[in-house]
């Protein structure tokens, strides 16, 4: 029996009469790389926002390592988050961006420096520590965002279409890098994407969402995904 890192139990979100997420159940074990795959409007980003704590579920429960997260604000969930547009702090250097989470945890100077160094090294950016985000390429910005998210050592990392703004070649390289970082750190990754190929290439498990429900769950190597058995998955 593998320990569950995150459990979604009967999770729903309505905006008025609009049912964005309908009664989903999902169990994610510690250290798994899970992709939530689906077209825009399928409820995948809303699900991510609920796990992060930015959106309160209408009904259902989110448990992290067995603890119910209802009422826990985002800043106390100890989760990492990487956005599609990177959301780097433009007034801080790469090093200061990566140090931000550790500073908020009131870690000591030496520990912060050490951890910043380590995080930047794991994304191969240690030489750009003193640059500002605007001086970086798209790929470098993406890696800075990743380093910033992993620096405070979260046990769970949420990624919202993190590679969508990169060109194809870079995207393929980053897939490998992301997977390496995930395996090296042993963090649970929840990766939201609309790109089936991307989901297949990296994940241990792919969760296909369609119109607010989980349409299909399985390993990317399973036969069913290659076929067009489910329209959203085949897209």
């Amino acid at each position: 029996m593998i320990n569950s890192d995150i459990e979604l139990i009967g999770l729903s979100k309505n905006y008025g009469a609009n049912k964005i997420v309908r009664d989903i159940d999902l169990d994610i074990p510690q250290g798994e790389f899970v992709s939530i795959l689906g077209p825009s409007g399928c409820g995948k980003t809303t699900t991510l926002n609920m796990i992060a704590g930015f959106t309160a579920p209408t009904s259902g429960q989110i448990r992290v390592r067995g603890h119910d997260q209802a009422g826990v604000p985002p800043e106390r969930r100890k989760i990492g988050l990487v956005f599609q547009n990177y959301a780097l702090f433009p007034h801080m250097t790469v090093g200061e961006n990566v140090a931000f989470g550790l500073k908020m945890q009131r870690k000591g100077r030496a520990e912060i420096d050490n951890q910043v160094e380590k995080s930047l090294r794991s994304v191969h950016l240690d030489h750009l520590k003193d640059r500002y985000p605007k001086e970086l390429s798209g790929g470098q910005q993406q890696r800075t965002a990743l380093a910033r998210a992993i620096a405070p050592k979260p046990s769970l990392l949420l990624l919202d279409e993190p590679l969508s703004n990169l060109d194809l070649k870079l995207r393929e390289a980053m897939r490998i890098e992301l997977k390496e970082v995930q395996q090296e750190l042993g963090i649970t990754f929840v990766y939201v994407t609309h790109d089936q190929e991307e989901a297949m290439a990296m994940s241990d498990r792919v969760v296909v969402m369609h119109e607010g429900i989980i349409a299909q769950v399985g390993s990317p190597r399973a036969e069913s995904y290659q076929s067009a058995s489910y329209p959203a998955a085949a897209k």
Partner: protein
Amino acid sequence: MSVLALKADKRRPHGPSRVQQFLPLFPPSLILLLFFAIPMGMMVGLSFQQSDASGLTLASYERFFSDQFTLMGMARTVVMSGLVAICVTIMAYPVAYFLARSKSRWRALVFALAIAPELAGVVLRTYGWLIILENQGFINNALIWLGVIAEPLPLAKNMFGVVVGLTHVILPFGILSLLTSLQGVDPNLEKSAQILGASRASVIRHIVVPLTVPGIVSSMLLAFTMSASAYATPAILGGAGFKVLATMIYEQVLFYIDWSFAAVMANVLLVMMLIVALIGTRLEARLHQKLHT
């Protein structure tokens, strides 16, 4: 004229000619020249003249800069405008932040309420403040009735009253100028900071405020220049003893009929505001460049 038309025709494929491009600017330029540039020039000229002497003289300037009374008026103008700039910006910031971020249905109402004071005239609103602040006013009467104080507090006819009145008048402008700046901050930055462990207060302090410093500067600049040139509010709420450059200019023109001295004061006020505006816009441009592109 026909030559111009011919030239314009030749250039047609490359878009409108230079003359055509600048043509729409002609009427407003003419109005500005007639009613702004020429009077300004006359005012500068006037400040170097004396009614009892021919030729140009620096006498009025010497008088201004050697007179304790006028120098005090200038200092009072700077202090008053600076205080208003600070008060407006501090009070406008939370309102602008709410307007920039809220998706609530109250947003439209708050926006309307924030701008509504501009619908009533400045003089009307200033008299409203006088009713509230004066010795026999609402606040003093209420406090005396409650037994908190025995003698009325000096709330009007002084710097305090004027700063309160001007802050109220200028607040909507501060809100609007901060709103633009706050809307330029990506909400994902705040979310990122929050998930990294920052409390609401830390997000504001470490992310939102540093990124809106250009907006803070422009709000302060706007409030400063509007206060320094305000006449009605300092005249009504300041009382006879409270002299700033704007009210002193009025006195010189209407009571002392010393246009030369009034022109000197107007020029001092103008130069003062130009200096503040120059420093402010330079600072703003530098900060903007640091944060963007």
